[in-house]
């Protein structure tokens, strides 16, 4: 393992200490239980937006705490769901009297821990709603699996719902908006290399030099198929087609196209993917009205990319364009 760390056990703690030093204007960091809090939290009368998940996906979620996005993020150990005590304390800390919305990626651990935290917070008199994100079309959604994973759409939901909360919308309106976003966004990813979880010390999976994994998850969970590496245009089509067909996205739809790096893939390659994706969408009569390109929901140093499509309407476009001031996303301020 080659990593710029001190000891595996201290990775998350030392990361939090760095974030605290780097962004005192944006966030406060609370330790034991660990959570990152918007600097001016709680914002009176505003619904608090709380998310969280395992570390190793930076900038998600801690990098999205700030004005116009999240009020708090709970970081777990690398690739491990945070615990209910973190979520409960974060929920209490951001409750400005209008309730708190939990945005939860669909993983067994995340869902269980957030459910327990929501029950505890409600017992303390806080209005809590939770919306589960499950946009990964690589996984079959059936009664016999844990269901689709929450991936790239999480970033878009946190931005759009965060902006709507900033406008002063109610907890119920925000939960409805989040569910609507989940209903009309889809993603799929691929990997060129594995990632190395610090405490595991070796690659999560073996991927031969000339092969790639299509449908990879953000924790290195294997996907749909493994095959020989193909040119970027072909890979883009292999990711985009199942995404488009699943919803389905149709001619006349206006979409946000999000091309994400898994951590190790540089922007130069993401733009190649973006170029082909736009071409394919235009051929289907689908119009890209907004985009996001870069490493926003990563999987440590994994090389690879994911594509997320979200069907937009005027309200969502306006919320996407609204000011945001976080370490990971910043515009309009």
């Amino acid at each position: 393992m080659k990593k710029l760390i001190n000891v595996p056990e201290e990775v998350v703690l030392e990361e939090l200490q760095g974030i605290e030093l780097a962004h005192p204007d944006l966030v406060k960091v609370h330790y034991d239980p660990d959570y990152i809090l918007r600097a001016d939290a709680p914002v009176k009368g505003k619904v608090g937006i709380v998310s969280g998940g395992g570390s190793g996906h930076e900038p998600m979620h801690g990098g999205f705490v700030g004005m116009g996005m999240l009020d708090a993020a709970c970081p777990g150990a690398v690739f491990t769901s945070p615990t209910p005590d973190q979520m409960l304390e974060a929920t209490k800390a951001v409750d400005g009297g209008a309730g708190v919305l939990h945005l939860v990626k669909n993983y067994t651990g995340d869902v269980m821990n957030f459910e327990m935290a929501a029950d505890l917070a409600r017992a303390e008199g806080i209005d809590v709603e939770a919306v589960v994100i499950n946009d990964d079309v690589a996984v079959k959604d059936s009664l016999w699996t844990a269901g689709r994973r929450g991936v790239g759409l999480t970033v878009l939901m946190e931005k759009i719902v965060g902006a709507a909360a900033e406008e002063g919308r109610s907890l119920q309106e925000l939960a409805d908006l989040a569910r609507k976003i989940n209903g009309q966004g889809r993603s799929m990813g691929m990997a060129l290399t594995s990632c190395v979880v610090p405490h595991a010390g070796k690659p999560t999976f073996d991927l031969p030099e000339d092969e790639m994994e299509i449908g990879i998850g953000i924790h290195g969970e294997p996907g749909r198929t493994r095959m020989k590496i193909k040119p970027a245009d072909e890979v883009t089509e292999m990711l985009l087609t199942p995404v488009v067909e699943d919803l389905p996205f149709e001619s006349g739809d206006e979409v946000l196209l999000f091309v994400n790096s898994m951590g190790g893939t540089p922007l130069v390659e993401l733009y190649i993917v973006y170029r082909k994706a736009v071409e394919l969408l235009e051929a289907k009569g689908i119009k890209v009205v907004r985009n996001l390109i870069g490493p926003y929901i990563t999987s440590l140093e994994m090389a690879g990319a994911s594509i997320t499509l979200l069907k937009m309407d005027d309200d969502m476009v306006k919320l996407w364009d609204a000011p945001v001031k976080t370490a990971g996303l910043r515009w309009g301020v």
Partner: protein
Amino acid sequence: MSVTRDDVLLWIRAYAEVIDSNMEYLTELDAKIGDADHGANMNRGFKAVLTKLPDNEDKDIGGIMMAVGMALLSKVGGAGGPLYSTIFIQAGKSIDGKMEFGLEDWAKALEAATIGVINLGKASLGDKTMVDALIPAVEALKEASQQGLSLREGLEKSAKAAEKGMIATIPLVARKGRASYLGERSAGHQDPGATSTFMLLDTAVKVWAEV
């Protein structure tokens, strides 16, 4: 013939050692079908249990087990945190107020723990989870209790049944948890949760050898 509070404390401490020495093994099992964190998570949790134990040693057995459950809940994370926490909290509730227990009590406690795990994780027998080790162990304990076997025999039978259940997860296709994303590709690998559950019951037999 009963398990005393001291036996329970010994068992928890011994299990923490078992987890520590098997951390890499559990992580390797998890890397094959999950996300390579089970060993590290369990080890972090039981390290926290060890630091909390001295403050809870004067409680009854139920109180000690519930304290273990709470420590796990706040330190493990993932799915393993709430699930292992539930095992200790539900078993602890079942034997609350006792300073020692026998075979029938233990059968009831492990049954309560298993029901808690099933309610929380929504897994059934054959889904390739820790439930595959728990259910046979509970059934073996109940049967031993009904047959009037000794506590020692009951514990041995339950650990054997858990081991069989654990090995039986190898050919299964996972239907719950992160391994379920693999579908057919999850077959051929032993479930890490069933493995750590077997270790828990196996440690009880080894530590409670004199009961």
